[in-house]
């Protein structure tokens, strides 16, 4: 069973329906014990980094999420969920993240329209089961104003160009995060969700 973590940061229904579309059962959960019981954990989210960490903390969800990852259960952060995997963010003051990956979250520099809204290309940096059958250079749907800066090159799985090159897929082992919305990225996104449900 795939648990989609609900911590009050955006609509999760589309993620659930996209998993169902590729034949995977996913449930929306908000209790620590449901995350502990899950085989796979998905952390979606849109909104502010600080609010997200506060909500996770007050709902007692930080420990079970970190536990799922340290136990090697497959984990997928989506959009803000990717950013939360990192150590800290500079979004409206400094905030501590889940600290699963070393690195920081920064705002896009000037010169581009922010937020980035729309379809952009992901250049695959290394092979992983998450990206099986996803062609290099596939387009995904992005909506974000902040991006992650990974300290370790080996954690960068996919790179996207928006004025600068940044990590649009990051992670290692069985814990990954994607900056785009796979649930809204047509077949390329659905393929990633299917891979996550079946292969990671």
């Amino acid at each position, binding site marked *: 069973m795939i648990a989609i973590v609900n911590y009050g940061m955006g609509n999760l229904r589309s993620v659930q329906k996209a998993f169902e579309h590729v034949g995977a059962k996913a449930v929306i959960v908000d209790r620590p014990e449901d995350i502990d019981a899950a085989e796979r954990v998905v952390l979606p989210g849109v909104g502010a980094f600080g609010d997200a960490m506060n909500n996770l903390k007050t709902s007692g969800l930080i420990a079970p999420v970190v536990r799922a990852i340290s136990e090697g259960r497959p984990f997928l952060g989506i959009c803000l969920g990717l950013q939360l995997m990192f150590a800290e963010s500079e979004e409206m003051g400094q905030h501590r993240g889940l600290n699963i990956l070393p690195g920081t979250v920064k705002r896009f520099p000037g010169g581009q329209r922010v937020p980035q809204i729309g379809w952009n290309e992901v250049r695959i940096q290394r092979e992983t089961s998450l990206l099986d059958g*996803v062609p290099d250079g596939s387009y995904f749907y992005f909506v974000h104003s902040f991006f992650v800066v990974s300290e370790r090159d080996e954690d960068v799985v996919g790179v996207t160009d928006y004025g600068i090159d940044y990590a649009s897929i990051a992670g290692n082992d069985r814990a990954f995060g994607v900056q785009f919305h796979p649930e809204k990225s047509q077949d390329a996104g659905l393929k990633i969700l299917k891979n996550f449900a079946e292969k990671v």
Partner: protein
Amino acid sequence: MLARRIIPCLDVKNGRNVRGVKFSADKDAGDPIELAKRYDAEGADELVFYDITASAEKRDIVGKLVRRVSEEVFIPFTVGGGVRTYWDIRTIIEGGAEKASINSAAIHTPEIITQGAESFGSQAIVGSIDAIRRPNPDQIEDVCWEVVINGGRTYTGRDALEWAEELVDRGAGELVLNSIDADGTKDGYDIELNRTVAERVDVPIVASGGAGGPEDMYAVLSEGKASAALAASIFHYNQYSIAEVKTYLAERGVPVRPKIEIDLT
């Protein structure tokens, strides 16, 4: 590089397509889901559902449509048409749409934009402006644009550029500029309107009104500085397919999302 977006608009009423469309015999011609799936398969980057239902059950009807779309079509979509209150926006976003598009209601109650952006994020709130060309009273430039509402029937006396800035200041994450002069003419978008607003605000601009063919989309996405081009009838009546438009744009150096085949079995 970020691709420019091609967005078909579907007009719906009471959960049905306003204009009939010819499908193969086994498909329901009036079902917006079938039309949405066709556009998705052709390579649409996003969809806009423009709802003109005028009944007490409007919110329920729209909510049902949004939930059905989000179960079957996995690209972003926006819902507009008579979005007036926080509860209208909430129904649209919680049903699984990316964005709610707000037009006339923002003129009457600008706080709806602020409240929507605070509750759901700027990315979920589209400010939609119907603009009409007017002689410029200040004579600094030749033209200006006035905001009209209620489908173009009511003049507001508001300057469209100033209104665009206010919408963005209040939290709109994207603007749709619908030229009332160009709408329905198929003579091309109002390039000057799009360029002027795009140079004034930082959020993406979606051009609307006047699309007659791929060359019009090319003009508004290059010279007009729009991030996306919206069209209804040229796609609806199969004058051009989305794939044809994208090929035309790609040949001229406009970045578009190519169609790729991925095995989902």
